[in-house]
Structure formats: C-alpha cells, structure tokens
C-alpha cells in the first residue's frame, strides 16, 4: 500500500516546527545546537520526498551538501561551545549575554 506524499511533507514540517520550538524554549546551549540539527533533518526529509516525487536526483544531492555543511557546522559550533564554557563556566544561554568578558 502506497504512502501519500503529503504524509512525508507534514512529518517534515512537524520536525521543523518542533526544532524551532526547542530552539526557543531550551536554555542549554548544547540542546539549542541539537535543535538546529533537528531542523536541518526536517528539511532534508522534504528534499528527499520531493526528489522522489519529481524523479530527480538533484534533491538528494542537496541533502548530501546539507549533511556536509552540518558536519562542518557541528565541529566549529561545538568548539565554540567548549571555548565558551572555558571562559564562563556555564552552559545556560541566559548567563551568556556579553560579547566580551
């Protein structure tokens, strides 16, 4: 039995919305960073669903590039979090409110 394409798209919209909501309400900087990854995954699902619909490989290539950029972003972002934790000794974003310390 075939799955309606709209189910995939609604699932990807739900993942994206949950990612935005987690980004807004979470106070731990690592969890905020993880919700960005969740948003990227929601968009990736929509890309793959549309690639299936149009029978084009381009959508999957897009997902490949998003994965590459997400990997680079995770490496740099986590390094920033480590250096932030060294100077502030906290991971709470409400206490990280100065550009310079």
């Amino acid at each position, binding site marked *: *039995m075939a*799955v*309606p*394409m*709209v*189910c*995939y*798209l*609604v*699932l990807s*919209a*739900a*993942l994206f*919305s949950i990612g*935005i*909501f*987690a980004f*807004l*309400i*979470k*106070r*731990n900087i*690592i*969890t905020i960073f*993880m*919700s960005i*990854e*969740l948003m990227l*995954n929601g968009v*990736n*699902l929509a890309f*793959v669903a549309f*690639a*299936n*619909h149009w029978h084009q*490989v*381009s959508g*999957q*290539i897009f*997902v*490949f*590039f998003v*994965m*590459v*950029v*997400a*990997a*680079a972003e*995770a490496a*740099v972002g*986590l*390094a*920033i*979090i*480590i*250096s932030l*934790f060294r100077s502030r000794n906290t*991971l*709470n*974003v409400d206490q990280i409110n100065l550009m310079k310390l």
Partner: protein
Amino acid sequence: MNLAIFILFGLLCLGGALNLLLQRHPINSALSLIVVMSSLSVLYLLLGAEFLAVAQIIVYSGAIMVLFVFVIMLLNAGEEERTHGSRAAYLAGVPGVLALFTVLASTFFTLRTSFGNARLGAFVATTSDLSRVLFRNLLLPFEVTSILILVAILGAVVLARKEH
C-alpha cells in the same frame, strides 16, 4: 507493508523529537535525537534514497551525534534550569510555531492531490546515479565543500585549543 513501516518510523521520529523537547538533561536529548536520525534513514530508504540512508546513519547518527555526546560528557553538562528567558520564549514561541506548522500543513493538504503517492521502488536513485551527477555536473561545488571541511577542521582546532 510500506504504510506500516512509514507509520511505525514516522511515529518513532515524532516521539524522538518531542522527547528532545521534553527532556531536561542534554544527554537524554542527544539520545532521542539519535532515534530521530536513525528512523529518518529508514524513511529515506522508503523514498528510494539508499545512499542517503546509509550516509544519514554514518554521518549524522555516527559522527555528529558522537561529537555531541562527547562534548556533553567533556563539559559535564547537568540538567538545565528554568529562567525568566524561557517564559518569554513560551509566550512568543507557542503561537508562532503553531501558526507556522498550521500554514505549512494546510498548504501541503490543499496540494495533496498533485503530490500523489510514494510507491515503494517507483524511484530508486542508486549510488552510481548520484555520483554521476555529483562528479560531472557538480564537481566544482563538491571540491569547494572539501575546502569548507578543511577550514572547519582548522577552525575547530583553533577555537578548542587551550589558551596560554
């Protein structure tokens, strides 16, 4: 069969995402994000993206999430505390996110007849199809991403280094 697998892993995906939202400890959020990414790779297989399904497991659930769990343990991150900032985010976030989801979902539902169904095996992009496009038409962007990765490695090393 196809529908049953979609429902099972779609629910697992949604449950993992909601669990990421509800858990207070970052390590629990990280583990539920691994559930989301692994079940997404099954959905990619259903949509005929076999290379991406494997890459999703290796890159996302493997490399990126291991990095996250490693940093959580390195910094010994504890439970997050509730502050006034989260209350303001609730007030602005709940209506905004609900509005965004309603707009997206209603747009998809009004277009649902033109989208049709995703049959299993109707479109399978093999790794050779993917690499043919990637290494012929998109060779320059592919090489540029390798420079991006190199810069990211250097940046990570410089940023995480101990200052003297």
